[in-house]
């Protein structure tokens, strides 16, 4: 090939590549781009649940809907409080199709909201979550935080809708586009349990193992929107309480003179919402001797929003001497604090796979255990596990501090045998005082971190942070990872970006084409007339005169 030919070929191929690249140029030019969070998608024992689709590419519609509107090709945008649950239920039950659903969660306006407003929102959120999490929703459902952009959008949609026609391809309006990848299964989800020890003081004469007291809390959450499941109260409060107790006892145990004759085991478990799967695996990983050395275990679950009543849930009958002794210790301390602790007994049914409280897993291994919680009744499956309403505002630092005081004082009296003595081990203004700043900063951190277990990898920075914190207070910190129970399968694509475009209808484009065509034709005729004369214009349209006459 001659050099010029080669040059030409390379130039033409370069041009071809340039054209292909140009064809792919697609810049983001939306009117608004907002982060949105998808409803959870999971399979429970093979049954598909949650939102099964992720991509939205439909026109936006808003409530109130015009009569007889067909929503299968529109995405409904609704603020939470305007969405009637009966409407949603009806759609789900009758299997009517929606193009997509975008629910706008109310953002807190601080002090402007009254207590019953908050209560109402919480009630609606809980109901909505219960409805959506246990149903199979064939269309994409997204949650977004309600702000001014959405207010304007809704107002505009209403304006268009009030003109009588619902938004569709022919009438213009707004288009919601969420382009996310097809949701795929999370491969081998892991649950990571973190444990730390505070070894007790072994005297010279003691040949046996020291007894152990365990303090356990589960740190993961589950909610309708996994990217928003921060679980401040369930169970962020429990985790923070555990960390503070660990800190206090590590101070006591750092000095051999004040080290007690008990080992203290701290456990941060995962897999809580899934029948405390993780706790079971964690206990199974223990050596049997270690397990038998556990005197009793205190599980903390949701201790962040109580004021006067805390509940102690047990599976052994309250007449049991061990339980009686522990309950008396708690009662003594609570009386001094001015709060009350009640005891609730729930027998465990070994054949029932449902595990409502964490202590039940201990009981199945024949370890005495109890759960301290503000909830008086056991939660249902996948409820009170850190849902949409469980944000930082629903927890307060004072409750956590109260819990810490209750547990640590009773524990100290038990370990050091201080019964009947009027001693406040963790008194205010002492070096062992409970640190509210520590509690607040950890509570804030936990309220910012969504912690749904299948989306937390083994090496997630949050797990590393918990491990690091625990190793500051305890020794022998170990992270045990295991696979999540096979009954659950989760799908990813939890977060996406919503683009809102303002589109013109097809009729507009056609109209424009018509106008343009007529303009060009008029221009053509005008120019022909002015430069060549009217005759020329007519001649263009006349057929050429036939030659037949001449030829004949």
């Amino acid at each position, binding site marked *: 090939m001659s050099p010029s030919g080669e040059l030409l070929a390379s130039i033409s191929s370069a041009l071809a590549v340039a054209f292909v690249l*140009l064809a792919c*140029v*697609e*810049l983001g*030019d*939306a*009117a608004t781009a907002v982060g949105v969070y998808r409803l959870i998608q999971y399979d429970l024992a093979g049954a598909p649940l949650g939102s099964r689709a992720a991509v939205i590419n439909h026109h936006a519609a808003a409530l109130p809907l015009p009569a007889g509107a067909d929503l299968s090709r529109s995405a409904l945008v609704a603020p939470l409080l305007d969405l009637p649950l009966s409407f949603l239920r009806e759609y789900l039950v009758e299997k009517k199709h929606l193009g997509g659903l975008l629910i706008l969660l109310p953002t807190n306006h601080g002090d402007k909201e009254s207590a019953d407003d908050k209560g109402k929102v919480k009630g609606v959120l809980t109901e909505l979550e219960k409805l959506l999490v246990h149903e199979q929703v064939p269309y994409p459902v997204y949650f977004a935080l309600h702000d001014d952009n959405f207010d304007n959008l809704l107002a505009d949609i209403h304006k268009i809708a009030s003109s009588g026609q619902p938004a569709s*391809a022919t009438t*213009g309006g707004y*288009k919601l*586009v969420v382009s996310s990848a097809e949701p795929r299964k999370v491969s081998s989800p892991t649950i990571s349990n973190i444990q730390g020890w505070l070894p007790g003081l072994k005297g010279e004469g003691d040949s046996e193992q020291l007894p152990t007291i365990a303090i356990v809390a589960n740190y993961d959450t589950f909610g309708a929107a996994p990217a928003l499941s921060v679980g401040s109260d369930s169970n962020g409060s429990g985790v923070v309480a555990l960390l503070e107790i660990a800190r206090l006892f590590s101070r006591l145990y750092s000095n051999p003179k004040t080290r007690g004759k008990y080992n203290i085991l701290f456990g941060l478990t995962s897999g809580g919402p899934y029948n405390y799967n993780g706790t079971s695996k964690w206990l199974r990983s223990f050596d049997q001797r270690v397990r038998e050395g556990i005197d009793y275990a205190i599980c903390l679950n949701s201790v962040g929003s109580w004021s006067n009543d805390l509940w102690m849930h047990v599976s052994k009958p309250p007449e049991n001497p061990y339980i009686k002794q522990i309950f008396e210790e708690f009662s003594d301390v609570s009386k001094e604090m001015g709060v009350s602790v009640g005891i609730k007994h729930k027998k465990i049914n070994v054949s029932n796979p449902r595990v409502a409280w964490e202590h039940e897993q201990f009981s199945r291994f024949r370890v005495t255990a109890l759960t301290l919680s503000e909830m008086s009744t056991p939660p249902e499956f996948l409820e009170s596990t850190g849902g949409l309403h469980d944000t930082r505002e629903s927890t307060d630092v004072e409750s956590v501090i109260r819990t810490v005081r209750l547990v640590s004082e009773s524990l100290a009296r038990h370990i050091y045998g201080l019964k009947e003595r009027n001693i406040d081990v963790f008194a205010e203004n002492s070096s062992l005082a409970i640190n509210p700043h520590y509690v607040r900063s950890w509570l804030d951190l936990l309220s910012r971190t969504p912690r749904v277990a299948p989306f937390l990898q083994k090496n997630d920075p949050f797990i590393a942070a918990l491990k690091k914190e625990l190793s500051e207070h305890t020794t022998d910190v170990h992270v045990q990872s295991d696979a999540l129970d096979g009954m659950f399968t989760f799908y990813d694509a939890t977060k996406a970006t919503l*683009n809102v*475009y*303002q*589109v*013109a209808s*097809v009729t507009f*484009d056609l109209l*424009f*084409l018509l106008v*343009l065509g007529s303009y*060009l034709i008029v*221009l*053509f*005729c*005008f*120019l*022909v007339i*002015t*430069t*060549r004369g009217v005759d020329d214009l007519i001649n263009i349209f006349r057929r050429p005169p036939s030659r037949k006459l001449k030829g004949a």
Partner: protein
Amino acid sequence: MTVFHFLNCAFLTFGPHVVYYSATPLSEYDTIGTSVKAAAVYLGTALVKLVCLATLLKVPENDSFDPYQELMKVFIGFIDVAGLYFALTQLTHRNISQNHKFQAVGLGWAFADSVLHRLAPLWIGARGLEFTWEYIFQGLEANANLVMTLSLAALGSLMWLRKNKPKTLIPIIYACALLLATMPSITSSLVSLSYYSLGQTCSNMQLLEEVIGVADTKGGWLRALLLACYGFHQLAAVLGLSETDVTRHP
């Protein structure tokens, strides 16, 4: 559907040029060579202008009216005129009459201008889902630009190609040319001094002058018509200005 919008706007922007070529006797005399040469000259002129602008102008720190900068812009505007002069007089055209020559040159010039300034934004922007009026305005501006370029070419051919100019009109013609070249600077300075309506009337007066200037030449009534449509260009400028104002103050 958005490719549809892109095609619509492309027709609006480039259609009139094609229609002009095919409707007028230009197509009969096959003056496409002239147009292509004019387009090439425009390309060269644009490059030279860009280089000069980049070298000589500074990025303005504030919005104040800087006479020095405006003067530089005026001088660079004259490069435009020089390019047109080159295209009209120095290039070898086939044997085509004056009338057709200036039309062909103007057409080629305007087409190159449209392609260079408007094709890329159109390709990138009009294909998106979001609908704006911007590209339609751009198309209208391209139309007006065609008219203005034709009128400029007419003026140029009047100035440089006709040997016998009516004596009385010479100063008017040159005044018109000067005003034309400096028009953008004058309008922007008037706007910045918020004498917006004055700027408008100024352009109208200029239009009137041009119409008077060429109306009495033979076969020049077409030219007069073209220059009368100069107002169209000003309208587009107004639209463009108001658009940018709207977008600049959110």
